[in-house]
Each structure stands twice: as structure tokens, then as C-alpha cells.
């Protein structure tokens, strides 16, 4: 088990629990009361920690090394999943996966960012940072879904689109922009869920949907707290303040009406009971798809665009000619 810094009180309780269990195994002392007491303590301590997480702590949780990633969710939700590869132009990006799967009898197309589970795989997956071909693969699969009238499920988990030399050469910006444009008009339901990190353009590049959810311990922002700190505070040391200032948690995002709902995680976060987390997300996805399938495609597209049109806050000031109308002399 990996414990984050703010989970340290839990670590020592777990260590005590292990010791008592060992005592129980070798001796003939009855330790069941002691175990129950400790388990209860762990439960309460965990609740105390998890009920009061700061923005930065949620960012840390979203990056927890044991947190489930897209392929885990997809394979658990969908007993039969056929992964499909390649963008048909350049190559197969390993940082975005996709394919056809099944949600209890309903065929769906899955797309999602994919991070690696160990050092070697993290490199293989480029840490979940996609290149243009990843976004183009996702678009190809969404078009496939549209052709065969299958709903799209998009799982978001990225520290950002890859800022590399070749990514620029192949049009990282164009690939993300194209996805936004096409997703706005896609004739099948799109349901998105942030399952880990929702960083900036790299996240929204597969994130425009009829309904967008965030899991409880995830974040969504225009920039990571670290980069925000380095730019606005001119130092890497203000990530905690930046995380607070950016209001990047699921609660804030729902309050701002920038997402449609929050999917609860098991106590202690998705990594503490991944199968439970899958069940919770699956339940929401099935519900959303069923709702969206009731709608006529044109009405669904209109509602989707309308939803995004409403996003933004501004004031109106009294009309004052800042730039006066000029005329030729």
C-alpha cells in the first residue's frame, strides 16, 4: 500500500493492525476485539481525513500510483472489450486508448487517456500525455460510433497534451480543436468522466459531451497547480495556493455548473477499492446513456451546444463608446 503524506496517520494504524494480526496468528490470545477496535479507528480516521481534503490533496489523490486507470475501468465494466488501434494517418498513440465494448448488453465505444501502472509502462504510455495521433484516433473511433449509432464514453485522465517538438509539427492544436468541433456535432450520445487528472486542452480534447462527470477525488483546470504557481507566483512553491485559487475540485466544478455531476468514490478513494469505484462509475454511465438515448439526435446536439454556450461569467456595463466609430475623411 502506498500512503500519501496526509494519509500518514492511517499508515501507522495499518501497521498496528498488521502486528496484532500476527500476534493473533501465532499465540492463543483472542485479538478479535483489538482488531475490530483498530478497524473502527481506521474507518474514523479515514473519514476525518477524506472529509476535509484540500484542493492540493485531491490533486495528489488523482495522481495516486495505485489509482485505477481507463483500461481497468473499461475491462471491468465491459466483459468483452475489443481495443482498436491507430489514427489511420500516422501511428497508434499509447496515451489514448479506445475500442468497442459493452455495458450490460449495450454496445458502446470507449475512449480514454491511459497512464502506465509501473515505471516501464508509464514511459510506454507517455505518462498519459497524448500526441496529435491520440486525439485523431479518438476522433476516428467517435466517427465509428456515430456510423453505427453507438454511445461514446470518454474517460479523462491526463496531466496535459504532450508539449513536444513532433506534437507541434503534427498539429497538436489542430487535433484538439478538430475534436471539439466534431464532438459538438456528433450524432450519438457522449458521456465523459474525469477519473483522475483533467489538465487543460489535453483533457477537454476528448471531453466535450452531453453529460460530463467528475469522480470525487479528481481535478479539472485550465492549468496544473504547479505550472500555475510557476507562472503567476514565479516559483514552484505555491502549488497549494494555486490549487485553492483555481477551484479545481469536483465540488467547485459542479457549483459552477461546468460539470453535470459527481461520481462518489469508495471511502479512502478509488485506489482503496477499485472494483467498487468501477461499479459506482458504471452505474452513472448506464443511467446517463439511457437518458440521452431518449432524445432525438438534433435536439441532443442543440442541448449540448446550448449547455456550453451558457458557460462563462461576465458583467454588463452601461454602453460607453470605448472605440468610437470612425469615418473616412
Amino acid at each position: 500500500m502506498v500512503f500519501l503524506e496526509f494519509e500518514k496517520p492511517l499508515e501507522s494504524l495499518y501497521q498496528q493492525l498488521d502486528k496484532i494480526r500476527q500476534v493473533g496468528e501465532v499465540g492463543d490470545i483472542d485479538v478479535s476485539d483489538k482488531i475490530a477496535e483498530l478497524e473502527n479507528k481506521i474507518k474514523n480516521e479515514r473519514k476525518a481525513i477524506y472529509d476535509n481534503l484540500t484542493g492540493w490533496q485531491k490533486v495528489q489523490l488523482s495522481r495516486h500510483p495505485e489509482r485505477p486507470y481507463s483500461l481497468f475501468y473499461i475491462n471491468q465494466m465491459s466483459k468483452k472489450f475489443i481495443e482498436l488501434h491507430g489514427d489511420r494517418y500516422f501511428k497508434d498513440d499509447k496515451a489514448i486508448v479506445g475500442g468497442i465494448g459493452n455495458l450490460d448488453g449495450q454496445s458502446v465505444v470507449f475512449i480514454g487517456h491511459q497512464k502506465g501502472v509501473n515505471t516501464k509502462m508509464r514511459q510506454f504510455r507517455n505518462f498519459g500525455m497524448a500526441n496529435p495521433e491520440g486525439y485523431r484516433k479518438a476522433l476516428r473511433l467517435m466517427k465509428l460510433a456515430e456510423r453505427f449509432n453507438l454511445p461514446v464514453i470518454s474517460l479523462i485522465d491526463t496531466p496535459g497534451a504532450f508539449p513536444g517538438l513532433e506534437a507541434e509539427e503534427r498539429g497538436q492544436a489542430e487535433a484538439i480543436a478538430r475534436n471539439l468541433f466534431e464532438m459538438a456535432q456528433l450524432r450519438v450520445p457522449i458521456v465523459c468522466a474525469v477519473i483522475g487528472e483533467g489538465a487543460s486542452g489535453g483533457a477537454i480534447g476528448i471531453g466535450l459531451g452531453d453529460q460530463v462527470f467528475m469522480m470525487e477525488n479528481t481535478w479539472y483546470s485550465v492549468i496544473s497547480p504547479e505550472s500555475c504557481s510557476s507562472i503567476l507566483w514565479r516559483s514552484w512553491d505555491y502549488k497549494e495556493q494555486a490549487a485553492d485559487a483555481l477551484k479545481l475540485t469536483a465540488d467547485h466544478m459542479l457549483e459552477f455548473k461546468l460539470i453535470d455531476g459527481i461520481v462518489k468514490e469508495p471511502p479512502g478513494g478509488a485506489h482503496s477499492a477499485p472494483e467498487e469505484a468501477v461499479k459506482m462509475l458504471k452505474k452513472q454511465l448506464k443511467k446517463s446513456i439511457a437518458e440521452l438515448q431518449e432524445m432525438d439526435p438534433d435536439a441532443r446536439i442543440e442541448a449540448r451546444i446550448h449547455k456550453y454556450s451558457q458557460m462563462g461569467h461576465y458583467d454588463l456595463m452601461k454602453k460607453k463608446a470605448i472605440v468610437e466609430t470612425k469615418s473616412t475623411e
Partner: protein
Amino acid sequence: MGWFKRLKDGIITSTKDKKEAPDGLWYKCGKCKETSTQKDVVENFYKCPKCNYHIRLTSAQYFEVIFDGKYETLFDDLISKDILGFTDLKSYPDRLEAARKKTDLTDAMTVGHGKVNRKPLVIAAMDFTFIGGSMGSVMGEKIAKSIDFCRENKIPLMIISKSGGARMMESAFSLMQMAKTSAKLSQLAKEGVPYFSFMTDPTTGGVTASFAMLGDINFSEPEALIGFAGPRVIKETIKQELPEGFQTSEFLLEHGFLDFIVDRKDLKERIGDLLAMF
């Protein structure tokens, strides 16, 4: 007195941006370091007479260069709001106030409606001097409103981008403007109203990765910086020097993301030609 005079007035009233604007009668080019008279610069369409460096223009200056004289501004009454209560070293309201004072603008985008060679056009243009031309809710809404105006009146839309990207101080609201503007553009495209995207120095980040790359025609001025990630971030990521000319408009043309590059002296004529052909 034609638009030269007005351009000249423009340059004098906008000397607050000291790095770009000539001081007094002389202009020292930031690129070739040569000195020219201001008159020569203005008559040369705001380009260095020695090396053809295209000086960064304000929205008002582009309107003057492109429109047939008269134009009206639209949606001027939208102003930014600090919905998050964002404070870094400065509070967002203070930053907004400072930017307003410095630029005499209400936000980083101004929308103009006028004619180019007698054909109607709506131009939504950015000002880099207003918090780096950053995109927040106001810019997103001005673009959305411009699109609806163009759909209603069947007038082509042009967006002049000049931006460091999304406005951090509006966090996810600014991120969602990427989705909002792209979604609105899909409506414009569906209705067959042309959209020209003119990317000027610099165009990066969330602006490039949304409406800027979605033009029916994408074009730029010479040697403009255009990219998704900023050069510094890329350099830090790949830990090597960037090749000469990387992320310039010439680079983008070569890699297939621009339709053409236009010298500023031909800008108005080229836009007029496009409008006549669409």
C-alpha cells in the same frame, strides 16, 4: 488624409506599449535593431522598412488597416468578472483594472462590424496588451455572440488571434471557452457562413487549440509565432534546443496547417478577394 494619418494617430495613442511602439519620431526595430523614421514605418503598413518585421498591432489598428473606413464595434458592454475570487501575487480585479487603465480597452477582444471592399465582414480581434490577449469568459462570449450575429445576418466572420492562451485567473471557465467557441463555430459551418482565422504573432495555447485552428481558411502574417505549447515549455520537456524557425507561420505552412501567409501590405486586398469569392 487617408488611413495613414489614422494609423499614425493610432501609434501615438498606443505608445504605452513601449517595447513595440516607436518613441517620438524614430522607430528602432526589435528584430534588426535598425532605426527608421516613424513616418516610413507607418507608410510601410507598420512593418520595419529595413527587415519587413511586422510590428504587433492592436485590434483598432487592424480594423483601420482592413475595414473600408467606417465600422461599428459590437458587444462592448461585456466586461470580465472575478467569479472565482482569484488572487495570486495580485488579485484578478486589480489585474483587470490595471489592464483597463493601460489599454483603454474593456477586455482582450474587440469586435468590429464593417465592410472590406464594400463586402460586409465581422472581425473579432484580440489585443495582446490586455493580459496577454488571454481568453476568459468575455472573449468566449464575444466570439459566441459574433457567431450568432454572423449566422443571423449571413455575414462572414474573421477572428484575429493574438494570445498567450487561456486566462488562468478564470480557471475552468476559461478552459470551457475552448469547447464553447468550437461548438458555436460548428453551427456557423453547418449554415455555410465562411469563417477566416487570421493568426498573428503570437497565437498559442487554448486559443490555437480551439477556434484559431478551425478556420475554413487559416492564414497568418510572416514570422508569427503559432503553436500549442510555448517554446520554453517544449524546450524544458525535450531538453534540447529548438530548431531554427520552429513554430513560425512558415513552419506551420510547411506542415500543412495554414493556407497562406500574407504580407500586411496585401492583407486588405487578400481579405477582399476572399470575400468576393465565397
